[in-house]
């Protein structure tokens, strides 16, 4: 790839530039910063569609009383049950139980605090979900 062929397209890097290797005029491969590439934007969006869908599904389930807010917050941290369990220091089977509204409602403050800490949110946030769609998948 030639240096002038390194894509400088609108992308996902938020003003950052990514280092690519490409050929200068003498044919030598050197670092050429890239503003972004449409290809990376397309494949990046593909994963986010999937993640956002799963977060929104969780939000709906919480609103319908089928799941606890923990499910929503776990998904919006892009976590699986096993990752949340390891992060909070709770057995996986207990995390699974706490994804249901009933068992979640009976959690004590200490347990809620552990989940909130693991997710990087406050206990108040942990107890609720947003009223409107619009997934947020990072802190």
């Amino acid at each position, binding site marked *: *790839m030639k240096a002038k062929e*390194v894509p400088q397209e609108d992308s*996902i*890097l*938020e003003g*950052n*530039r*990514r*280092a*690519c*290797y*490409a*050929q200068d005029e003498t044919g*030598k*491969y*050197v*670092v050429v*910063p890239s503003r972004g*590439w*449409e*290809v*990376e934007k*397309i*494949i*990046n969006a*593909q*994963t*986010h569609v*999937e993640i956002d869908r799963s977060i929104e599904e969780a939000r709906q389930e919480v609103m319908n009383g089928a799941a606890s807010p923990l499910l929503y917050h776990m998904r919006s*941290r*892009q*976590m699986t049950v*096993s*990752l949340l369990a*390891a*992060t909070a220091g709770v057995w996986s089977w207990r995390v699974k139980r706490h994804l249901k509204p009933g068992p979640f409602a009976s959690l004590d403050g200490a347990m809620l605090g552990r989940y909130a800490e693991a997710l*990087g949110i406050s206990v108040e946030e942990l107890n609720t979900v947003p009223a409107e769609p619009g997934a947020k*998948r*990072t*802190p």
Partner: protein
Amino acid sequence: MTTPFIHRHAAHCETGTVAALLRDRGLDLSEPMVFGIGGGVFFIYVPFVKMGGIPLAAYRGAPGSIIKSAYKRLGVKVRVMRFRSPDDGMASLDRFLAAGTSVGLRTSGYWLPYFPQNLRFQFNAHHLVAFGKEGGDYILSDPVFEHPVRCPAADLRRARFTKGLFAPKGLLFYPEEIPANPDIKGAVIDGIRFTCRRMLVPVPFMGVAGIRYLSRQMRKWPDKLGMERAAYYMGSVVRMQEEIGTGGAGFRFMYTAFLQEAAGVTGMAAVSEAAGMMSETGDKWREFAVMGAKVCKGVLEGPGAYAEIADRVFDCAEREERIFRLLKGAV
């Protein structure tokens, strides 16, 4: 007496970190040299190992392997520390920084506030250099960013002690002893031999055979998985090639840069020839990425498109086989 740390923009976190730590201690090797010496390009496609429901595909070796191999081949003694407690891990980092020692850290990318939102995934094998602390902020040289960045202590702490696959456990490392006259030529040849061996290994899902395997599997995706899932699989392969800091074409361009430098170091004509071939192969991989993205976008559809893409991937395998046979004969 210490000289100020110099940040240099790199394509890949691991090679960039290794190069930066050596440079800060007086051994100035380029990122591609570290990459080539530390193991270089690879390919693996294992459909029965799934990560997030997607078959494992990678264009290089396991996280951490480049660090280990690069230091080993250069004869550098490296100190590696892991911590049970985050408090200890942060206190230890502070002691090194207070003493003016730059250190490498393994982190998750997800919790680093300076990362672009869309690139924050729960993936634990990011590497960076810490070289200063100002107030509550750490001054980091994250190789894949253009300039040094600041990171609040609480965020860095979280990023260093995430759990799950490749959990960093506060991993901290730095070169302790660097030989006065490292045998660069020997390390380069060792590195090339290693890469040849791995790319030509007679295991169906690794190296050149792995690329052919991916090509065969790809052809069957539309029938086996349905169009939506097939496009997702295609996107995940392209993602490993282009989104994860590879310098373009799944490390193939960075490896070309290495082979160009290696040709100078070894004086071997075959290495120079291989560099030219690798550059062309990188262009072919890029063409594959463009077509793969079209499939994801729905511009290209149907089994015919997959067959055409599979042909291109197969062509990359043929080309890489020729390159590594040539190199193997030379070193």
